[in-house]
């Protein structure tokens, strides 16, 4: 189990234990954390599981695949620290990860 913190736009923090192998998106959806829609179910075919990653985590995360940056073009207010949470697979290395959820997904 790996600890992941989700901070909503209203500044509410949810820290939960996510099973390794799941994605950061699945961790949010399964625990009813508001603000992550994941319309396509994790297929990198929409941009509705968009999160902002805390700066110090940016380089510790697995690199983006080609399609992820393309999808992020269509996200709501993308920034340099934007990621699709469906592409972040939870492992021991991600223990303590903090992500901010944007004000909306669509």
């Amino acid at each position: 189990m790996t600890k992941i913190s989700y901070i909503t736009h209203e500044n509410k923090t949810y820290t939960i234990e996510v099973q390794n192998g799941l994605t950061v998106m699945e961790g949010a959806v399964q625990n009813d954390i508001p603000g992550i829609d994941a319309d396509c179910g994790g297929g990198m075919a929409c941009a509705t599981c968009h999160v902002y990653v805390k700066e110090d985590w940016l380089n510790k995360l697995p690199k983006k695949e080609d399609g992820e940056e393309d999808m992020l073009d269509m996200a709501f207010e993308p920034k340099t620290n934007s990621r699709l949470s469906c592409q972040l697979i939870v492992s021991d290395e991600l223990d303590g990860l903090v992500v901010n959820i944007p004000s909306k997904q669509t």
Partner: protein
Amino acid sequence: MIKTDALIIGAGPTGLFTAHQLKLIGLECEVVDNLDKIGGQCIELYPDKPIYDIPAIPECTGEELTNNLIKQLKPFDIKFHLSERVDEVKKEKDNWIVRTNNRKLFSTPNVIIAGGVGSFEPRKFSPKECEKFENKSLFYSVKDKKLFKGKIVTIFGGGDSALDWAVELSKISKVNLIHRRDEFRGSQATLDKVKELTKIGNIRLLTKYQLVNIIGKSDIESIVIKSDDGDTQNLKTDYVLGFFGLIMQLGPIANWGLNLNKKTIEVDTEKFQTNQKGIYAIGDICSYPGKLKLILSGFHEGALAARACFKLAKPNEKYRFEFTTTSSNLLKRLGKKE
């Protein structure tokens, strides 16, 4: 008022194959779609991307799949109502009265929602000020390019639409092209063209910038853009175009009194019927235990929903299960037999 046995909402692969199934078992149907063309997500989101998990088709693109489904519908006469969004569904005795945004009316005992993840709408700029200029000097699509003749047009986006319009409008306008990063996802040929036009000064290219504000009273006077490292620029412009792709909204479906589960509609797995008799949901938009958002699942769901429609459309007839290989009835409908 158009009368039909079943109305399909959504002309994506699921809707198309369901139309085939309805016609095959002898029911009339019509198809409505919010987009201006047939194909749904396959055409709108990934026309060129190959799909590898359609049974018996090792590899095909979204466009090829759509064309094949249209070909499969050739024996049948099916009316498509494109660029029409269904706004309202009301019960009147045994029928549903369906009204579109263009006031087209349908009367039918069966409504099949094959709406994917809802209707596509352009993703919009986030600054609040943008709203008041929308459809006046700020657009998410181009209807008549003559409007921009001799004007300064600032285009935002990094895909084919943004690149294509930058090239096209650079012939008649002064074009700024702005994108949030250095890489573009449009076709290489168009991108090369944009780079060439930038070199000779016909397009001004600004990357790693995003829109933060629009200044102007009734018309746009200028816009404020900001880069990742905090640099802010004020650009004089007459028009702003945004091409950020499409987002999916459930839209008016949310108000039809159906049981929803997040953005999907709950159905049973026998008829794929919703909590309203005669309203079915199939494909990506439906949910039930074990639901897979695969095209092949949509085909199965549509085939079963079509059989359920039969009962309500022809209450005095009995549906008989038949194979296309052997049934002369079906072969006649397919135009393979006199």
